[in-house]
């Protein structure tokens, strides 16, 4: 039987990145994907004839430019298009808009608060510095602060020097970001409620926290990071949807010689004498490899694919404690025509950016209140984009697709998710949009509603957490996914983790997959 240098479990973007880097280093690599297509949560599917949906993940902000360059992804079809604006409709019929042009945004903000218009620049400057301060960490294998190994000490020393070099003011700001709630942090800067609500919304995405929960300020920063690289643009949209990102990485991996097998779910990782030796597929086939890397989330990587006796009990306990708590849903719509919003009537450039349904801090916090007690938000926070306005190929000419990211939809819903509950959730979403854009419901040709249960069922992400584990402070950096095991290796020799559940995790970033591949190569796979 053929023995591969490496088998990668899971053909999501991180698994594919790992495979591509290993294949690029001339390793024989096999990717095993359970579904009929690669992509994991970054897939484009034609759910309704002629209309293409980025079914789950829908925007790209943090895909590492070095990955784009190293793997020559544009040659394999990757094109990331800018999403330039955000419009927040308010409940009084007004709006708050952030446009691509700085002066235009400042003037818009001035309309709401001359003071905030000025603070906005200073805030942007600080966040820029903060993102710059944190950015090196993204590209770094997390050192273990309790270790005395020379590599850890060296990395810690470097990190310490880096943070000392920030200066007092920025270090203080960083500590605040690490500890405060996004609402409190933004309160220190701004007085305009709708501005704070819209900014704070990015701090709650993918977490089971509200804007007033401590720790959410950090996620604000996580979302600023994209701005540093891709040259000046925070959010982008992949031509062809997020599936095109996965497809381009898969194509690059194949070009380097990797083999990708779909409809090939892995049942177990084979372990002999404490060392991974291959995998058993769900159909019973056994495949051998010198190295096995799992891009699945930590719970499935360790508790499902391995027998518990292969792992130290403390580690198993840590993984069991790792929090998922999926809190987001998705509604994808095929539209006959674009909706006109009361706050900015007509069809125009506003449809080329995002609409944020976050009219006030209370609105967003109340949406969380529902979820805290086990219900989906009756009036949820939503991030709406029209992908067909950016890439017309996503829908038939003149028709449109609408992507609605919704929070909150708790995984653990009172009474559990049923088909009826899913439709009720979809109704809540559509009715809320209708309240800001009357007549919108009559333009819907097809509706796809996705709950955290559906995310889990289809993609395998535990509890439907879009980040393969909550992006909470206690689950980041050298704690992701568990203390002592944040460096992509696992307690089983030859078995590695390469998914979003490892540092730095989250978003279509690919950094976990790349760092894991580096680690595997360093260990001499």
């Amino acid at each position, binding site marked *: 039987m053929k023995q591969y240098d490496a088998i990668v479990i899971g053909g999501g973007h991180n698994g594919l990145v790992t495979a591509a880097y290993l294949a690029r280093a001339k390793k024989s690599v096999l990717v095993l994907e359970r579904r009929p297509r690669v992509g994991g949560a970054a897939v484009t599917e034609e759910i309704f004839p002629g209309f293409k949906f980025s079914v789950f993940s829908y925007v790209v902000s943090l895909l590492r430019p070095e990955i784009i360059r190293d793997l020559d992804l544009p040659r394999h079809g990757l094109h990331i298009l800018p999403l330039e604006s955000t419009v927040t409709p308010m409940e009084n019929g007004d709006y708050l808009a952030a446009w691509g042009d700085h002066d*235009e945004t400042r003037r818009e903000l001035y309309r709401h608060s001359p003071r905030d218009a000025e603070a906005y620049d200073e805030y942007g400057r600080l966040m820029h510095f903060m993102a710059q301060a944190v950015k090196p960490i993204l590209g770094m294998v997390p050192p273990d602060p309790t270790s005395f190994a020379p590599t850890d000490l060296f990395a810690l020393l470097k990190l310490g020097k880096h943070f000392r070099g920030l200066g007092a003011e920025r270090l203080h700001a960083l500590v605040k970001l690490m500890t405060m709630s996004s609402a409190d942090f933004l309160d220190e800067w701004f007085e305009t409620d709708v501005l704070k609500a819209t900014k704070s919304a990015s701090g709650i995405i993918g977490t089971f926290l509200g804007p007033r929960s401590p720790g959410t300020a950090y996620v604000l920063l996580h979302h600023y990071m994209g701005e540093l690289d891709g*040259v000046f*643009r925070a959010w982008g949209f992949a031509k062809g949807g997020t599936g095109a990102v996965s497809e381009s990485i898969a194509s690059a991996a194949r070009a380097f010689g990797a083999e990708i097998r779909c409809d090939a779910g892995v049942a177990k990782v084979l372990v002999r004498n404490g060392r991974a030796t291959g995998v058993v597929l769900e159909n019973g086939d056994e495949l051998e490899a010198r190295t096995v890397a799992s891009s699945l989330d930590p719970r499935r990587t360790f508790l499902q694919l391995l027998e518990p006796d292969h792992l130290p009990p403390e580690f198993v306990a840590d993984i069991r404690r790792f929090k998922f708590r999926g809190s987001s849903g998705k509604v994808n719509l095929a539209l006959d025509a674009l909706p006109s919003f009361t706050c900015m009537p007509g069809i125009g450039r506003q449809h*080329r950016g995002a609409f944020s349904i976050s009219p006030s801090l209370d609105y967003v916090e109340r949406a969380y209140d529902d979820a805290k007690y086990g219900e989906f938000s009756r009036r949820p926070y939503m991030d709406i984009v029209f992908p067909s306005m950016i890439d*017309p190929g996503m829908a038939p000419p003149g028709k449109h697709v609408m992507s609605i990211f919704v929070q909150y939809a708790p995984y653990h819903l009172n009474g559990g998710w049923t088909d009826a509950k899913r439709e009720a959730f979809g109704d809540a979403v559509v009715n809320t949009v209708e309240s800001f854009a009357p007549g919108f419901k009559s333009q819907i040709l097809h509706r796809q509603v996705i709950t955290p249960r559906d995310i889990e069922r289809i993609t395998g992400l535990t509890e439907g957490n879009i980040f393969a584990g909550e992006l909470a402070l206690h689950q980041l950096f050298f704690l992701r996914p568990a203390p002592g095991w944040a460096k992509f290796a696992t307690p089983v020799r030859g078995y590695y983790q390469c998914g979003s559940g490892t540092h730095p995790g989250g978003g279509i970033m690919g950094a976990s997959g790349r760092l894991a591949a580096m680690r595997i190569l360093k260990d001499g796979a």
Partner: protein
Amino acid sequence: MSLRTTPFHPRTGPLSEGQAWRRWAGYVVASSYELSHDREYHAIRNSAALFDVSPLYKYLVTGRDAARLLDHVVTRNIGKAKVGQVLYTPWCDNEGKQIDDGTISVLGEQTFRMTSADPTLRWLHLNASGLDVTIQDVSEPTAAVSLQGPSSREILQIAAERDLSALKYFRLTSAKIRGIPVTISRTGYTGDLGFEVWVDASQAVPLWDALIETGTPYGITPAGMLALDVARIEAGLLLIEVDYFSSRHALIESQKSSPLELGLGWTVATDKERYNGQAALDAERKRGPAWQFTGLTVDWDSLEQLYADVGLPPRLPSQAWRTSVPIYDRGGHNQLGYATSGGWSPLLKRYMALAHLGSAHAPGTEVRMEVTVEHHRKQAKAHVTPLPFFNPERKRGGGGA
């Protein structure tokens, strides 16, 4: 405006959000219509960008000796060209130094349309003595738009109500768009799937309206020169007065270049009778050109480090630049040549430049490019990269691409 506006100006004028115009051959055309050229750039690679390219100089060359004249002037073999073909070609002085570059459309056995960046009427007349040929300057009466991008074919097919999938790269056809007679050539300056539409100036506005109306559901986007400049660098296409000087404008010998030094060796025919510069070019080909025109990719980590040294994140040019920048060897002391255009590719996420280097430096060679970081001259690591930087299959591909 004391400069001329193009026949499309009644439509392009009101589109300009920031009144950003650029001079081109005595006309003004949009630098960008929106405040930033970002979206216009992305339209080239994502959907379809519509450029007003009317300022190009255009000449209609007709008569029994028309092909003979052109064959004598340019370096490509016109005698072998078929009706319906378009040839990209440079032309040279007698020393084989490049005067200009442009296209020749073979409209009929004895009918050719030549485009150029500089006025060429006098040069054509100088070469035409004793020949049975008529040369007309049709620059003003002929308007042109360029529709570039992956959706360009689909839009034109609907507008012209005919299948264009058989129209090959660098071929042309006549067609009607809403009753307006046009010539459609599969040409452009973006290195993408794209077409140029040639029309009588009096019909320019209705043609524009027809294209915009048809193209809107496909994401057609009027675009200006800033967006075009980024795309043409990605495509490795050179620009006169920027990447090379016309030998007729050069003040000193070293400012001149031959097509062989500009990466245009493929356009210099080896199978035709006497033409301007032939002897010099034959000799140069034999001994090998001293210079090459090539791509450079600036090493990101190196650039980032230069900025990190002064405590800044990397700054990249938000527009393509057009200045001469020294290129050194990896030791940083010996100058190997100079870059003439450069910029950040939003698509490729690469900092790219077009450069003149001694011909010895093969692809992959590590060099240093001068960059100014916080007022200080630094050198960033870069690698010699073959052109083009971006070359999608759809550029030459058939229908359905």
